[in-house]
């Protein structure tokens, strides 16, 4: 089980995340990259601020990876998440999954980002010109 997890307050490196999952016995890698969008619901975003409950976030990230290995024939799994202040265009999360065949890589990668957004204790605040809001906090 090749499993790589990272929380970092400095810029993430896409190439190194992908390199972690490359292997001669894999035929397909699916990579998801989440970036900071310049607008949300029509409002201009100046920056995002990510905060993590780091020890628990890493535990939940590991749980996601382990479930991916259980459910699909995945070869390697890497998930890097950024914390701190991010400006528009910066990378907030990278998930790379390799497998012998592509279906497992796609399924596991999509499962991983969907589940991350539901269960990993990381929070983001959107900062606009006229205020700020913790995303998803209120119904």
């Amino acid at each position, binding site marked *: 089980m090749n499993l790589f997890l990272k929380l970092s307050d400095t810029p993430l490196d896409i190439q190194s995340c992908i390199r972690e999952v490359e292997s001669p016995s894999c035929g397909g890698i699916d990579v998801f990259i989440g970036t900071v969008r310049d607008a949300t619901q029509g409002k201009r975003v100046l920056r995002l601020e990510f905060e993590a409950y780091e020890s628990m976030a890493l535990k939940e990230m590991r749980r996601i990876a382990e479930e991916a290995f259980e459910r699909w024939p995945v070869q390697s799994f890497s998930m890097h998440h950024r914390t701190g202040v991010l400006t528009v265009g910066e990378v*907030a999360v990278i998930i790379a999954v390799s497998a012998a065949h592509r279906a497992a890589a796609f399924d596991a990668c999509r499962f991983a980002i969907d589940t991350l957004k539901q269960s990993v204790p*990381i929070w983001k605040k959107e900062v606009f010109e006229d205020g700020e809001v*913790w995303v998803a906090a209120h119904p």
Partner: protein
Amino acid sequence: MQIDILTFGIARDICGGSRIRVDVPDDTTAEALKQHLAEQFPRLSGLASFLLAVNEEFAADNSLIRPGDEVAIIPPVSGG
């Protein structure tokens, strides 16, 4: 017993600090602690969800809080 509670995101804003201390009876359950917190900080009840983590795991309502446990308020997550 006294319990130190970590807060994050909007819960930190609501509680006014990244670590708060509450005084609850021994053998308090996670559910009872949530009720206690919701009374002390009514805005927690307005969140889309409001969970507790105990020792870095999401806590079931009936799980007991023990002295020394690492307890955290988990408002709606929004990573990614």
